[in-house]
């Protein structure tokens, strides 16, 4: 057993209102630069819908993730030799049109247009070549089912269902799916990078791109089945969601989580057995992958696991945080969270609580008591959001885990209604979904009250190995990168800086940290051979 820790996320889709605040704040933080105009590390897509980039879930076309070849895992886009042979033109790379052509408006025209009969407009201009352009697609063009059947027909998950979907507006279904990088346990983007620039961090499992090692071979864009690695066309480097690691290291939630108005995101530590990952990802039947991944996770409440984790070098506060982890609770204890597309075999670590809401409304509308458990359970398989569709997203088509998760959510509603109305608790409700009243109320507290301190249980960063190692810097702090800060100022640690941090400053003084008094060492270059 090789215990490793991972900072993972769960999103409660019942609460997502599709406001795109996460996307916008993420973009303002990370990708508001030239070269990344089209890049959204976080995007919110309406399902059913094509997603961003268009139809990214069609792996026959985009060749992302892993596949089994004679029982062994190989990247779907091909093994090492095949990757190298395709170095000069990668056939699986989406073009800018598959994302969208970013644009701005020529506002100057509003005030400089010559006098005429019509009110002047601000015509759209391409942000890529500056030429006039026509806006025909965007990062959420089919938001709220905009475009209707024409665009929905391009949804790869719907195509697989092979079922005519009701598109009359009264019967149409939709929900929102916010997506970030999955920070997978078995990342295929890392596997296909010829330069070895992408890596998974030992300490917290965050998958990052080393900007100094990336050579722009762009295999990772193809390799990621979620299409969450992007090519910066100005710097010629791959960039991806960093799980806001400078914030995570400081014990703070990611920007998308922090700014989520629905408070639907949860961040916490998961302990897992790294030795099991390869075997689990190679599970023969796609529908068993969800259970196989659950089998990799370890119970942080088990004293043996705690001891083994600390023996493996995981700090005590991380093990403590793992015990309080909301993510572990939703995934392993309550089993209401499910992975996105486990069939890609990347072992994703951003999980989702499937949406339930419309079922209560529709039951009430038909004159039934919408929160009566018996009726709720019976109605779940006739949800407006078809179970098969959710199963196509979260369990490779296996309806049973989705139904079980939704039944737990329905049971929570029924149970808590009795509590709120002052009625006696009915233990049969909890028993019917394999839980007890205490569990149900714990889940209610986590999902419905969702206190800040309980949603985000993030221990501060540590460094595996010797403490004398230099502090790592920001992977994106190159010119044109968002993190052009000194490592010292970025974390703003109140404690005295470790020696490594000063070594990285190479004897220079950081004026942002200077209080203006005295003359710190390194403010002026030393004379003679002392200069470094």
């Amino acid at each position, binding site marked *: 057993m090789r215990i490793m820790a991972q900072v993972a996320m769960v999103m409660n889709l019942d609460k997502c209102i599709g406001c795109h605040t996460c996307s916008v704040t993420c973009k303002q933080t990370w990708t508001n630069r*030239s*070269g990344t105009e089209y890049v959204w590390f976080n995007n919110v897509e309406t399902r059913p819908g094509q997603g961003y980039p268009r139809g990214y879930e069609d792996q026959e076309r985009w060749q992302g993730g892993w596949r089994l070849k004679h029982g062994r895992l190989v990247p779907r886009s091909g093994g*090492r*030799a095949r*990757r*190298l042979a395709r170095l*000069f*033109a*990668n*056939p699986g*790379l989406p*073009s*800018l049109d598959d994302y969208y052509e970013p644009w701005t408006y*020529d506002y*100057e025209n509003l005030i400089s247009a010559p006098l005429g009969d019509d009110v002047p407009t601000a015509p759209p*201009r*391409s*942000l*890529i*070549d*500056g030429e006039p352009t026509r806006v025909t697609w965007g990062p959420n063009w089919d938001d709220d089912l905009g475009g209707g059947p024409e665009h929905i027909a391009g949804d790869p998950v719907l195509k697989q269902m092979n079922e005519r979907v009701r598109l009359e507006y009264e019967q149409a279904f939709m929900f929102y799916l916010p997506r970030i990088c999955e920070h997978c346990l078995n*990342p295929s983007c*890392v*596997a296909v990078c*010829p*330069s*070895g620039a992408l*890596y*998974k*961090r*030992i*300490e917290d499992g965050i998958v990052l791109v080393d900007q*100094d*090692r990336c*050579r722009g*071979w*762009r295999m990772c864009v193809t390799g990621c089945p979620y299409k969450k690695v992007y*090519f910066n*066309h*100005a*710097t*010629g*480097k791959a960039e991806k969601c960093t799980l806001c690691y400078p914030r995570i290291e400081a014990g703070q939630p990611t920007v998308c989580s922090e700014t989520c108005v629905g408070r639907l995101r949860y961040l916490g530590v998961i302990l897992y057995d790294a030795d099991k990952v390869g075997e689990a990802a190679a599970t023969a039947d796609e529908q068993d992958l969800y259970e196989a991944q659950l089998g990799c996770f370890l119970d942080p409440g088990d004293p043996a696991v705690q001891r083994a984790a600390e023996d493996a070098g995981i700090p005590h506060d991380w093990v403590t945080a793992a015990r309080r982890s909301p993510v572990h609770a939703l995934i392993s204890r309550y089993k209401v969270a499910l992975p996105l597309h486990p069939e890609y075999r990347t072992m994703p670590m951003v999980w989702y609580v499937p949406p339930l809401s419309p079922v209560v409304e529709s039951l009430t509308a038909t004159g039934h008591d919408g929160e009566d458990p018996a009726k709720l359970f019976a109605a779940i398989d006739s949800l407006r959001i078809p179970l098969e569709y959710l199963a196509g997203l979260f369990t490779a088509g296996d309806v049973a885990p989705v139904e079980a998760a939704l039944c737990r959510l329905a049971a929570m509603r029924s149970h808590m209604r009795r509590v709120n109305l002052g009625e006696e608790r009915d233990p049969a409700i909890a028993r019917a979904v394999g839980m007890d009243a205490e569990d149900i109320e714990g889940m209610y507290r986590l999902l419905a009250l969702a206190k800040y301190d309980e949603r985000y249980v993030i221990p501060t*960063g540590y*460094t*595996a*190995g*010797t403490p004398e*190692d*230099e*502090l*790592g*810097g920001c992977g994106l702090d*190159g*010119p044109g990168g968002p993190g052009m800060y*000194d490592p010292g100022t970025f974390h703003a640690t109140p404690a005295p800086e470790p020696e*490594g941090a000063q*070594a*990285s400053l190479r004897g*220079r003084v950081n004026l942002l940290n200077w209080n203006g008094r005295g003359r710190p060492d390194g403010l002026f270059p030393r004379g003679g051979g002392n200069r470094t």
Partner: protein
Amino acid sequence: MNHLHIALWGVLPYLVLTVLVAGTAWRYRYDRFGFTTRSSQLHEHRLLSIGGPLFHYGLLFVAAGHVIGLLVPESFTERVHVHERLYHANALIVGGTAGLATLAGLAILLHRRLRVPAVRAATSRSDRAVYPILVCVLLAGLTATATTLRPHPYDYRLGVSLWFRSLFTLDPNVPAMAHAPLAYQVHALLAMALFALWPFSRLVHAFTAPLGYLARPYVVYRSRGTRRAPTAHRPGQQPAPPAAVRR
């Protein structure tokens, strides 16, 4: 005249070699971030999927041909009983084909660079210097290859190759090159210009060919602690192409 020949074939190669080695070392030290293919496949992929492989694979064959032609002495091929005529027919057919494929690939890539607005906008100053030289080197090389079709062709293995090998013994055989036909001389001069520009252009990506990938485990793990501290500023980095609206 003699002084010019000494300067061109006895001095210049060493200057170019120095610039190539020192320049690459300097770039790697100060601008590792700039070591990239700067691929424009995102903007246009149809033409690139033909031109890219055609150019690069052609170039690999051309490079292999130069290694054989310049480094393997004529005495060696004679000893292993490769007949002079067979050798040159082979050089002409394989080398000529590879050269033409490279030229065709480059033509497609250049057409795309000029005609696709997004790719054109992503073209840097160093690209504008490198592409014309690349075309001229190729044309001069193909011309030199074509001259071997004549009845009594120049045997470059008794001229140019001797000069090239003599460079590495630090005893440049200037007359061997000075008596070579003009096409060979022009080809060599332009190639030296290309090598001098190499460290300062996108051509450096050739030095980062990811051969280590073949021997690497698929998933790479790294610790926070093992990363290098970033350099605060990176001289040598080219400014990003203007993506803002032009008016």
